């Protein structure tokens, strides 16, 4: 296995994009939305309890569990990228993928004049680019799993 879920959360805590790959727990869209906004709230709390005023990509960046690894990346514009993977995926790999996801978001979502900011991303080219990026990290034995939609 490998990476099994991707969430993109906007700056008000709304889920604007999510993908599930092989191994992801079954989750309805409502559940996914709830998790995204909960995650956003925890992120806010992290900023509130930090001893120093954070300047940039800050707050909660990682959750390590016995069974999975979560990495989150929040650039200063407030949008958040979250990847969930099994433990065999290296943390640095996840980190660099998150930065690349931010680039894809800037290129294929924001630069699309018909994409409305902070709304769910329904852009074919973004989906394709994400699939290409995560190819090789999802699914079993390098076999890419078809994204499972909620």
């Amino acid at each position: 296995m490998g990476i099994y879920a991707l969430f993109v959360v906007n700056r008000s805590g709304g889920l604007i994009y999510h993908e599930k790959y092989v191994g992801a727990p079954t989750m309805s869209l409502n559940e996914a939305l709830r998790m995204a906004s909960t995650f956003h709230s925890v992120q806010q709390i992290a900023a509130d309890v930090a001893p120093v005023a954070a300047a940039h990509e800050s707050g909660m960046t990682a959750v390590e569990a016995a069974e999975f690894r979560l990495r989150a990346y929040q650039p200063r514009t407030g949008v958040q990228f979250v990847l969930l993977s099994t433990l065999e995926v290296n943390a640095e790999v996840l980190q660099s993928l998150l930065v690349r996801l931010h680039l894809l978001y800037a290129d294929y979502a924001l630069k699309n004049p018909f994409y409305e900011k902070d709304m769910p991303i329904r852009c074919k080219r973004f989906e394709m680019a994400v699939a290409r990026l995560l190819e090789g990290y999802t699914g079993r034995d390098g076999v890419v799993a078809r994204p499972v939609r909620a």
Partner: protein
Amino acid sequence: MAQDAGRGSGAPRRKVSTLPANFSGAALTRLGEQASQRAEQVNGELAALTYGALVRQLVVDYEDPGEVNVQLERLGYNIGLRLADDFLARSGAPPCRRFVETSEVIARVAFRMYLGVSARVASVAEDGSAYSVVFEENPLADFVEMPTALRDQLWFSNLLCGAIRGALEMVQYVVSVSFVRDVLRGDAYNEIRVALREQRYERAPPDEEL
């Protein structure tokens, strides 16, 4: 990327003497150079002609040059809102902790990346709440000669003001941005004034039930 900015701290600094080391002019200029080389290039003439046609059409449609300024600013604002993420993802610019630090980043990195020209920072307010971005070359105005009727009213490149305002708003700085000088009006250089109006904080409002 961001580590590169740490070097070159010995470079001569401009008026903003309190900026951290990685905000030195030379380091940021190099950053802008690198970022603009990485970026895809677009034909400058095409951009200038497209922009020219746009302004021309707005002048025809709105008739009032003041209204054209407003519309150009609005267009730029929408660009800025979208461009902020692109800038953060691509530039590798060091994070700004204070408003005044955005000045050098905009002038040296963003102008280089998106316009291909370098700008510099001037007339920084003492409390750091306002600054000017000054540049001589303006690729948007390459072929422009202003008709006398519009010369003193239209800010031809007002789109840039909006773009700066939109991008800064995405990182919680509410600013007002306006042209002060324009080569098209016979000034020696272009000057854009950026003034901070409010800094927003992304956090829950204070609990009012006590």
